[in-house]
């Protein structure tokens, strides 16, 4: 087998476009999912009982069923109920819901890890609940969940390739398209893999930098 990458270069703008959409999909789902995660974690710890049950149900259903089927339900089943979403939007919604379920559990664990006494100490100094959260809870909780949250983010980035199954034009879908035009499957998927790898590595670098900036206090091992 001889390798021939030359045909791929004609599609460089397509690959770049696919990579950008993958990035966009990741960021949308991460931001929306994190919002779901924060609200869900707060409600699951202190909300009314029916709300807590509803959130627990959501978490269990999403975490114990295939993400691909969740995406298909949103893309193929919701239209019969009158809600028709274009491929990219459907993928963004599905991945947000998917990431949100994991984010709730991760963020909840982070909040649980802050000792009650820390909150009391803040309250006793006359701070508001928001000030206690912002200045006393937030950073230590974030540090606790940082490894699991960032690896969940990486899983999300790689998982965006599922969106290709509803024809959303992200990186993997672009790869399939180029493959069908060039029949250079090995080269195409090697390049696509390399782009995913580079994206993940770039994020890991950013995460490591942020970690050094944000978590400077020593901890007892």
């Amino acid at each position, binding site marked *: 087998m001889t390798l021939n990458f030359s045909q791929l270069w004609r599609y460089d703008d397509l690959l770049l476009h696919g990579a950008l959409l993958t990035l966009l999909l990741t960021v949308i789902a991460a931001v929306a999912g994190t919002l779901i995660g924060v609200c869900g974690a707060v409600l699951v710890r202190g909300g009314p009982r029916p709300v807590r049950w509803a959130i627990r149900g959501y978490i269990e259903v999403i975490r114990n069923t295939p993400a691909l089927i969740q995406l298909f339900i949103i893309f193929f089943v919701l239209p019969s109920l009158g809600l028709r979403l274009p491929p990219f939007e459907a993928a963004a919604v599905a991945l947000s819901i998917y990431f949100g379920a994991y984010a709730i559990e991760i963020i909840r664990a982070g909040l649980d890890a802050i000792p009650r*006494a*820390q909150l*009391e*100490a*803040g*309250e*006793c*100094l*006359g*701070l*508001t609940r928001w*000030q206690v959260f912002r*200045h*006393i809870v937030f*950073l*230590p909780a974030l*540090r606790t969940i940082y490894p699991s949250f960032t690896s969940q983010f990486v899983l999300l980035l790689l998982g965006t390739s599922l969106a290709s199954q509803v024809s959303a034009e992200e990186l993997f879908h672009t790869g399939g398209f180029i493959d069908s035009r060039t029949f250079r499957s090995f080269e195409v998927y090697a390049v696509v893999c390399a782009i995913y790898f580079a994206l993940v590595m770039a994020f890991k670098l950013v995460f490591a930098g942020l970690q050094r900036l944000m*978590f400077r*206090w*020593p*901890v*007892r091992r």
Partner: protein
Amino acid sequence: MALVEIRDVHKSFGDVEVLKGITLDVEKGDIVTIIGRSGSGKSTLLRCINALETINGGEIRIEGERIAADMPNLRQLRQRVGIVFQAFNLFPHLTVERNITLAPVLTGKIAKDKARDLARDVLARVGLAEKIDAWPEQLSGGQQQRVAIARCLAMSPHLMLFDEVTSALDPELVGEVLKVMEDMARQGMTMILVTHEMGFARTVATKLVFMHQGRVWEQGKPAELFADPRTPELRNFISSVK
């Protein structure tokens, strides 16, 4: 008017009544030590005074103002009442300086550019001026507790509560914390302490309160109570901690 007026306070956790009608006055400048066996309700009483616990009956007034967990100006009140805990409860992610200045700056007590001076000032009072840039984790237990005291002092409280503040310390570190508290007592700070330090209760306190089974069993001048306990419970307690 007493600085703290506690009238017939009742507090239950579920079916267990922990405080069974506590009445106690604390005057300005008083150093009140509360002693008693574990489970007698000492710490609960202290936590009721700044509404960390909600009382089920009676009333507590500080500077004439009635305390309740749902009162609208609870935060303002707490800024006047400092509490130091057994486990220090410093914020691990903030330097000593930020631990001290966080609340004064956020509550608008002091301008941001004056904050470091304030931290330096209160740290000097607890003998830790050189630790202003340290992280809590880098300090010994005794130093952490002194920072916790400095953090309260930065709010210029009218009253300080101490909840077994030396109980979690290694024996050789107890002295440095007690010394800081003695200094505060000399400077006229009103203090209520729950403590097992009988030496402090005997020599520094102006008033001794012995709690037993959720009640104020005896109270009076420390020298008199130690020399001549009126009840067998206090007599047994004193002989057991000697």
